[in-house]
């Protein structure tokens, strides 16, 4: 059987979901028999070399670069999966969604206790190499179509494993009660 190709990325996330993927322990050997990785931090490949079968997205979108990567994933992946709470609902970053952006930036760079008095020119970072921040943090499916969602913070290794196996082998996925959790 030809190996399925997987790509992964972490957008506005903490890499915890990727860590959880690695928590599948010795099953990683089985995984390597089933799939090969294209663009992914797992193998440090930075660019897509081809159209892939499965894309796993960790994190939501908080800046324009995230949107760009997400759209690229949608274009390159036959099946796209949101992995973890951030990808699904913005995650903890999205707590800022309930506060006006200007207020957040002012607190972070101008007025917060750790920066007050240190930023003499009152600059909110604006180097042209820096991606511009979005007005709020977006769940991935509010930007592109997402085929499946794996909840959890992070999703348990078992859940990610079950999902990958089911996708690769085209089987029905098992979702026992204990695996679907939001924390």
């Amino acid at each position, binding site marked *: 059987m030809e190996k399925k190709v997987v790509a992964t990325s972490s957008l506005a996330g903490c890499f915890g979901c990727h860590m959880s993927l690695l928590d599948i322990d010795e099953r990683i050997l089985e995984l390597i028999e089933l799939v090969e990785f294209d663009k992914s931090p797992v193998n440090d490949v930075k660019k897509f070399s081809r159209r892939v079968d499965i894309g796993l997205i960790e994190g939501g979108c908080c800046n324009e670069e995230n949107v760009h990567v997400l759209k690229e994933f949608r274009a390159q992946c036959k099946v796209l999966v949101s992995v973890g709470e951030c990808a*699904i609902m913005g995650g*903890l970053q999205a707590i800022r969604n309930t506060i006006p952006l200007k207020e957040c930036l002012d607190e972070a760079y101008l007025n917060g206790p750790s920066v007050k008095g240190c930023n003499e020119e009152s600059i909110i970072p604006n180097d042209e190499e820096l991606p511009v921040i979005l007005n709020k943090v977006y769940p991935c499916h509010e930007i592109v179509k997402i085929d499946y969602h794996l909840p959890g913070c992070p999703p348990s290794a078992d859940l990610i494993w079950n999902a990958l196996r089911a996708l690769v082998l085209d089987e029905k996925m098992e979702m026992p009660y204990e695996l679907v959790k939001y924390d």
Partner: protein
Amino acid sequence: MNQILKFKLDGVECMGYKDQYITNAAAENGFYIPTLCNIPGVKPRGACRICNVRVNGKLMTACTTPLANGMVIECQTEELKDLRKAIIELMLTEGNHFCPSCEKSGNCELQALAYRFNITVPRFKYQFPERDIEASHPKLIKDHNRCILCKRCIRVIKDEQGRNIFAFGKRGNRITINIDTELANDISDENARMAYEICPVGAILLRENAFREPIGKRKFDHVPIGIEMERFHK
């Protein structure tokens, strides 16, 4: 002695008592009808609408509808299951429910229902409303981000003179549940704890009480909500 009544629930012959609400009668017959705003023993309100069942074909909330002889009740139809799931999804998107940072996570009834209904992502757009956290009361914290307006606290928590400590404010999608500042200052320890415990989500918190139970030891970590009532699994 209460009069005994017969009724049918999802095709099963059941028995209950006159004046018993459908939810309670169902539970005694081994059926779980999902509820969220309901608390057994307190006058029901029918606010969340999750317990909608078809009674002789008509949609009624099981928590507010008293049993009548010969009722034919449908509960676990595809239509009703999706209706309940949709309502839970509405609640998840209406407020700001960041489970990973919520101390009620694992013991939260909204989350437990979402687990039970296998919700991986809500069908509705997240609203991310701007809401306050009231942290100025001596014993309680009211986090409006998580409030699902179930009215439990309003119905249950009263001071010694029977006055409301909690009440609604405004209406429609601007509605909130507010605490009376003066009465919250004088709230008894028992009342404060009760308010925390009856809140199905993490909207009413007790000070100095957070994260007492580790993950894995919480109420809904291993077993779905309502399982203790179920004899007939559907």
